[in-house]
């Protein structure tokens, strides 16, 4: 798949996740738009995981610690054939398996997440198991930047280094916003890369919306043998929709009819540029 084909996919993913959020009248819009390009690269270029091998011990693992951005994950998994996209018509409905955070009831999802600060410890456990078994699968996890205030992350950062888990890659969706406002106004994280480095991780930065750049970084893990890899992916919350970008109000905002139409038109205009 070419970079442009991937870029087109990203636009379609944005259109779909907005469609299902609109239909459910619920969802984490800003964060899903922020991380969907990263998921696109992971699932279409990096991860050795498919409906055919899901459940096989050798598959790569993706654990979404920032579980609230589940709508991005759902549309990518549907596109990869883990379930029919029409299932997402039931998102957040009574009795649906498509809950507002990831659960293992949905094919393709490794672990129930949603409470923050949980995905990294789980990923460390999986990566450690691979090391013990001499297995060569890799483990990837996506962290929100707001969730880094949870102290449990920093416990797990220590353990990953302690065991030299170079089969583990964490990606921070660094959009600088959380529910209430700017991350730096809630709990100052910077200098973030230096903190990870000090904890013994091998750290690189990348534009989290540049599929080519993210591909390059993800294809070059581990950045250092014997160390876990961290990618601080610079992103924009609400990316792709002019009036949603960089506005924390869209953390779990749902567009009204007019806003929805405008959002889809903006994405259609982007698609037209590739035709």
């Amino acid at each position: 798949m070419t970079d442009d084909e991937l870029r087109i996919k990203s636009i379609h993913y944005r259109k779909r996740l907005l469609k299902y959020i609109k239909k459910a009248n619920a969802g984490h819009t800003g964060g899903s738009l922020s991380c969907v390009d990263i998921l696109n690269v992971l699932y279409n270029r990096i991860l050795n995981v498919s409906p055919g091998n899901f459940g096989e011990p050798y598959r790569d693992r993706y654990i979404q610690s920032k579980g609230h951005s589940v709508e991005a994950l759902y549309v990518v998994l549907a596109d990869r054939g883990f379930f029919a996209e029409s299932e997402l018509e039931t998102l957040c409905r009574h009795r649906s398996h498509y809950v507002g955070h990831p659960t293992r009831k949905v094919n393709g999802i490794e672990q129930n997440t949603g409470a923050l600060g949980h995905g990294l410890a789980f990923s460390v456990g999986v990566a450690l198991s691979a090391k013990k078994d001499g297995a060569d699968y890799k483990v990837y996890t996506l962290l929100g930047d707001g969730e880094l205030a949870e102290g449990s992350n920093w416990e797990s950062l220590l353990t990953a280094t302690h065991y030299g888990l170079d089969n583990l890659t964490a990606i921070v969706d660094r959009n600088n916003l959380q529910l209430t406002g700017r991350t730096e106004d809630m709990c100052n994280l910077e200098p973030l890369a230096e903190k990870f480095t000090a904890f013994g991780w091998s750290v690189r930065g990348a534009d989290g919306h540049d599929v080519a750049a993210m591909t390059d970084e993800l294809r070059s893990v581990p950045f250092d043998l014997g160390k876990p890899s961290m990618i601080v992916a610079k992103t924009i919350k609400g990316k792709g929709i002019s009036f949603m970008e960089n506005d924390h109000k869209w953390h779990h905002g749902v567009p009204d009819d007019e806003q929805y139409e405008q959002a889809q038109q903006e994405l259609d205009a982007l698609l037209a540029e590739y035709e």
Partner: protein
Amino acid sequence: MMAFVAGQELGKANIEVFSETLLSLAGKNENVLVVTSDSRGSGRLMSFAASLPDQIVEVGIAEQNLVGVSAGLASTGKIVYAVSPASFLSARALEQIKNDVCYSNQPVKLIGISAGVSYGALGSTHHATHDLAVLRAVHNISIVVPADNFETAEAINAAAQMATPIYVRFGKRPMYHLHGPGAEFVVGKSLAVREGTDVTFIATGETVYHALMAAVAMEKDGLTCRVISMHTVKPLDAEAVLHAASETRVIVTVEEHSVCGGLGEACAGVLMQAGLSVPFRIVGLPDEYTMTGSQVEIFEHYGISDEGLAQTAKALLNQ
């Protein structure tokens, strides 16, 4: 050979039996792992670490990490025993237990050591008098509180086979043997230690022995007591509770735990919902910061003792 009499022969501390049982399991299966949070000393796991160094994972003093990492290991098919003092494991890491283990159904075996008031005079920071209550309210976990060495070994072996999460908690004082040859341990099914018709003591963990001694003493007064080891607090053996209500005159529940939300209230719920009314007392730790003392002194202070339990039962019979 002398016939077996419950409560006569002193065995080992349950923690010692846990450690021996785990070493035996792990020696036969390299997928058995133990995960510790600077707890290998209090968990009696030094010899495990020396014999099977590749099967012990240390995470440092970080209980949330302990449980999260254990869930990840379990997701790959490892048989994982996460070992930490019950107080910290069940409080500090409660959200990890709820989400990473139970909600996600990663069948981690959570081992709460130095449970209840085992840490005695170290104080309430170190006491686990809340763990049964909080974990009872979490879906998809079995809660087992073994009373003696037999129950401990059986619970640890049973845990290895379970496809759903389990929490096992015990203390570090030597325990008397309560079950003779032929006893059968099943998670969720209580074990009778003694039969009687006046009183039923439904006890759990290290209090079962004291209930038994109270029953022995009351026999001198012409009163006979049933003593049940309710080793599994969840799922509760409701049938045994209902039988006690219909076959004996009063029920006394006994636990090394707060009277709020533990075994006693679980039994009361069974009785109320069955429409059964029977004189009933919950003996445990009252809703206060526990009195300073050793485990034995704390037990005696709150009437979790041979004499205290006999007095409670007699008072209930005389109501």
